[in-house]
């Protein structure tokens, strides 16, 4: 397998699946989460330094890809954490391989069809606008977690292309509603205070399907958190994840 990944920490394995953007670096969120276990943070096919394979067509390809990676790294039952697009992939993995999970944490996860609560169309905006929405108008404060320098245009186009391969149409998997009934491990859903990309109803619906009593909300220190909460509040988000994982 040709996969770029970062790994740090000790204890039970944690697999973190990223959203669109924030690749090619060890993030403060990675650092914080690695305090609670053996954190593996791969870059999806077509993202960061993982090449775009010609076989990537759908979520089934991503599910098998990560099953193979987990086997290769000998991760055993793992804590699965996914943010945004990574949350969608995590939900799919959980539906297909529930027995591989110790726990499931979905952070501002895409993937469901929630009529009347369509996510913002991120295929129709500049990167600047996207970051502005993700970080609730405070993108400058987190530039070091996103900036790609001269390669920004090309890198973001390449990553959006990989994202579009699986998520352009439809932009949800309506089968998740039923399939997630297979999940037996402890689960939690984490939302931002003011998510300008993904309406709150998505987190609520995930919680309902997974039988989670309440959605956890991560509060921001310098304003309400947005879709990019793992950048805005890396430590607090990691702490919230850890309430389910334990560790340390």
């Amino acid at each position: 397998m040709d996969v770029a990944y970062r790994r740090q920490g000790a204890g039970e394995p944690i697999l973190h699946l990223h959203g669109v953007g924030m690749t090619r670096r060890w993030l403060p969120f990675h650092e914080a989460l690695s305090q609670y276990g053996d954190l593996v943070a791969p870059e999806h096919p077509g993202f960061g330094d993982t090449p775009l394979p010609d076989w990537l067509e759908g979520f089934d390809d991503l599910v098998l890809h990560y099953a193979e990676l987990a086997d290769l790294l000998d991760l055993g039952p793992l804590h699965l954490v996914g943010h945004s697009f990574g949350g969608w992939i995590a939900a799919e993995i959980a539906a297909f391989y529930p027995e591989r999970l110790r726990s499931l944490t979905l952070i501002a996860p895409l993937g469901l069809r929630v009529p009347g609560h369509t996510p913002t169309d991120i295929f129709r905006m500049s990167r600047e606008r996207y970051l502005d929405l993700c970080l609730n108008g405070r993108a400058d404060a987190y530039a070091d977690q996103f900036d790609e320098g001269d390669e920004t245009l090309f890198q973001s186009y390449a990553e959006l292309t990989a994202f579009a391969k699986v998520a352009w149409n439809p932009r949800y998997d309506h089968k998740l509603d039923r399939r997630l009934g297979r999940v037996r491990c402890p689960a939690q859903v984490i939302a931002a205070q003011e998510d300008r990309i993904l309406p709150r109803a998505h987190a609520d619906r995930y919680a309902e399907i997974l039988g989670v009593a309440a959605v956890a909300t991560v509060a921001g220190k310098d304003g309400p958190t947005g879709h990019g909460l793992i950048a805005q509040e890396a430590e607090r988000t990691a702490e919230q994840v850890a309430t389910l994982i334990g560790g340390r």
Partner: protein
Amino acid sequence: MHELEFYSMVDATYLWFPPADDRESIGIDLSNSAYDPDLGQRVYDRVLASTRKAEELGFDGALIFEQHNHPLALFGNALTGAAWLAGETEGIRIAAVGPIANAYLSPVRLAEEIALVDMVSGGRLTVGLPVGIGVQYHAQGVTNPAHARSRYREAVALLHRIWTEDGPFAWEGDHFHIPYVNVWPKPRQQPHPPVFIPAAGSRESLELAAKYGFTYQAILVPRPVLLRNCETFRELCRQSGYEADPKQITAVLEVHVSESDREAQREIEHHELWGVQNVFRFPFHESFPPGHVSMASLRGMMAGGYRSSDPSKLTWKEMIDSGSVIAGSPETVRERLAEVTGEMGAGRVIVTEPWSAPTWLQHKSITLLAEEVMPHFRPKGDGRAVWQREPRAGYRTATEFVARAPRYAGMPVVNTPDGRRLELYGEDGLTTNPMEEAQP
């Protein structure tokens, strides 16, 4: 001067939409609440009038184009429009540019439509097969832009096989699996109508056009890039084992002819500016949805290719100097047209007027073009259009049909339940062959 075929681009633009300042983009969510059927009718009336005018003037072809989800061309299906225009004209070639293969669930449906229009038009169809501009992928609901190139290539390959091989055959592709490909009818022009591939210059598109012997319809890009594309295309044709015919390169040019250079500017400058300021204002991310261009093409574009500068900032002088607009007296237009198409090695030109120009002005300009410019690019002493010079596909009269149609031997026998054997059109039969009675 070198020979040129002239196609008049017939514009079907609905002009009564809000100015660019009030919106981000055209082609995705500009509300169709601005559409009024009376104004719409006016657009179709203009299409018909301009097509008839082009035929009357002796243009080689009239060209309509397909767009989706916006007012720049009220043909969601260029083939439907071509069928209509073919029925309203006699001889001029009708170019339908063109069905977006990716808007079809199956290329079989596309092959059926192309063949049908080619048949009923008497083999007058030219079909353009564009990959489709990026904004269309937001509103089509059929294809993912990230798979668009590969699906398009497969659709064209299947179409080509449908045209060149008898069915039934099985198609087992990445995007289409069709157990029995067996399309009826076949096109009137054999093996297939001429095909234009509109391309901004991506290597993928040029390769495809060269591979199948199609025509590269050169979408306007900065001049040096355009000339390089033409050279690349000729080289790709050589690699495919043949020398490109000049007609395989078609220039697309804004052309306006008037009494003098000064008069031409007075008549058309404001319309040219309206176009570049209102029509071509697609933000990058909407023109190029993810995967719509390859990473190599994207890097090429950013280095000076397709619309890497903002067209809405263009001035009249820049448009004239770059050759993107050819306007002036007949003499000026003759010289400039010869120069620009000569540099490209183009054997065809599609002339367009700004979409906002009134119908009478467009007719004045193409009349001057036909009478004062086009004869210089026709064979010496012969001002006829290509459709007048070359034999038309198919027969014209019943006698011609009977003389050339081979008798179909397999059909006309029926066994009756009481054991007789009757020839359907034989002496014992009750009917005569309806085909022999048909009037063309």
